[in-house]
């Protein structure tokens, strides 16, 4: 039987209340949202804390998915199921629906949140790879106000983020750029498992050439870092199978997987290359399809 060590339970009723509690209780307190990362770690006594602040009542305040003209804003309490089911989000960033279909299982997705997922900063976590791929930034709020950090600055290492004592992640912002699309692929041993390797890609086109592209990988390094060398290799090029293969080679070379029960280093490098190719190919195909089905929009923009 796995039981967490004793702690005091507090329930926050607003973001300000949560930040006030965090300020008062200091580093002995942690926030809990869905709890599907934190509670298992508490049961295993990998995390011990004196105060647990339940922020599930903040879902009304922070459970939004807002697709605006130049950016998407996702409240940190938006649950996996809400991200999966949002048609507006899938329209601008199909990578989210790709990823959410393979994150945990439907029952866990009813509870888990985007904020909890990326604050867990697990190098194998899929939404972190999605946010890295899309060049998202994180809005962190504390008693003295808000600050915005890029995903690169957000991750300090495995299970470490830029969120300090007395602060909480309140929003994830993702810039929308024209003529782009995205995709996600994951190889897992069974439904609901952590990734053996996952890859996300986002591509933006200018006419027949790639104006920008980003690839993010999960489970092959200390964090879900993007791979700038792939972006450099793809910019200004016309999409082709050779180009995708070249990006795959860079992905395999750039990542630092370890051999574990999910696979060998060689296998994971192979997956990094293959999934990079597939997601780039699918992103480009999606751009072509949206041009065919919505000519007015692409010609007008």
């Amino acid at each position, binding site marked *: *039987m796995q039981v967490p060590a004793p702690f005091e339970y507090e329930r926050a009723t607003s973001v300000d209340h949560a930040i006030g509690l965090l300020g008062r209780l200091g580093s002995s307190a942690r926030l*809990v949202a869905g709890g599907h990362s934190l509670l298992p770690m508490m049961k295993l006594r990998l995390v011990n804390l004196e105060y647990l602040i*339940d922020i599930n009542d903040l879902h009304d305040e922070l459970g939004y998915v807002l697709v605006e003209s130049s950016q998407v804003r996702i409240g940190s309490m938006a649950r996996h199921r809400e991200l999966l089911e949002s048609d507006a989000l899938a329209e601008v960033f199909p990578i989210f629906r790709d990823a959410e279909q393979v994150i945990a299982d439907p*029952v*866990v997705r009813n509870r888990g949140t985007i904020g909890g997922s990326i604050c867990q900063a697990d190098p194998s976590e899929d939404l972190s790879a999605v946010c890295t791929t899309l060049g998202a930034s994180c809005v962190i709020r504390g008693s003295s106000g808000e600050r915005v950090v890029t995903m690169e600055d957000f991750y300090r290492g495995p299970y470490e983020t830029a969120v300090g004592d007395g602060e909480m992640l309140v929003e994830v912002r993702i810039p929308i750029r024209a003529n782009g699309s995205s995709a996600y692929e994951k190889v897992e041993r069974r439904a*609901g498992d952590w990734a053996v390797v996952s890859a996300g890609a986002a591509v933006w086109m200018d006419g027949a050439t790639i104006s920008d592209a980003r690839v993010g990988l999960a489970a092959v390094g200390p964090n879900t870092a993007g791979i700038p060398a792939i972006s450099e290799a793809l910019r200004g090029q016309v999409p082709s199978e050779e180009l995708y293969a070249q990006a795959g080679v860079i992905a395999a070379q750039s990542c630092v997987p370890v051999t574990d029960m999910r696979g060998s280093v060689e296998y994971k490098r192979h997956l990094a290359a293959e999934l990079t190719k597939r997601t780039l190919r699918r992103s480009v195909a999606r751009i072509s399809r949206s041009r065919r089905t919505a000519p007015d929009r692409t010609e007008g923009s």
Partner: protein
Amino acid sequence: MQVTMNVNGNEVTGEIEARLLLVHYLRDHLGLTGTHWGCDTSNCGTCVVWMDGEPVKSCTVLAAMAGGRKIRTVEGLEQNGQLDPVQQGFTECHGLQCGFCTPGMMMTARALLDRKPNPSEHEIREAISGQICRCTGYATIVRSIQWAAAHEAASAAEAAVADASVTVDSVGVGGPS
């Protein structure tokens, strides 16, 4: 600490430790042992109950977090002495062998059919993908849920026909003939 929640329509209040998991509160404090306690790591899904209408794994929810919320367990499926169609389906189609995974399977199935009354086999398998049957009786579990869906569709159609005939009758009575 004190916690109050609604379980299967009844308000319950208890004195608990903050670290108590919902599954243990239901089983050990309330005696609702229909909810099973399995892997303890949110993998197996036998502990699934509803919280505010949505299936959750009660081994990964604190009883304190359920305070003020509505919980429905497998004991709450039966209504007025009538088994839920999902329970009938599991009986009709041999949906259980050892029965350990059954409460979680049925709670997830009920939630699925409430949202999607006529799911495809793929949708059923996706819905129960977070649950493990160690007897590997998935084929009969899927069939049981399909039985419940078909049975509910037939009942709804019968009710609609009955309503329609009542309407026709009342028109007939009040009409010029």
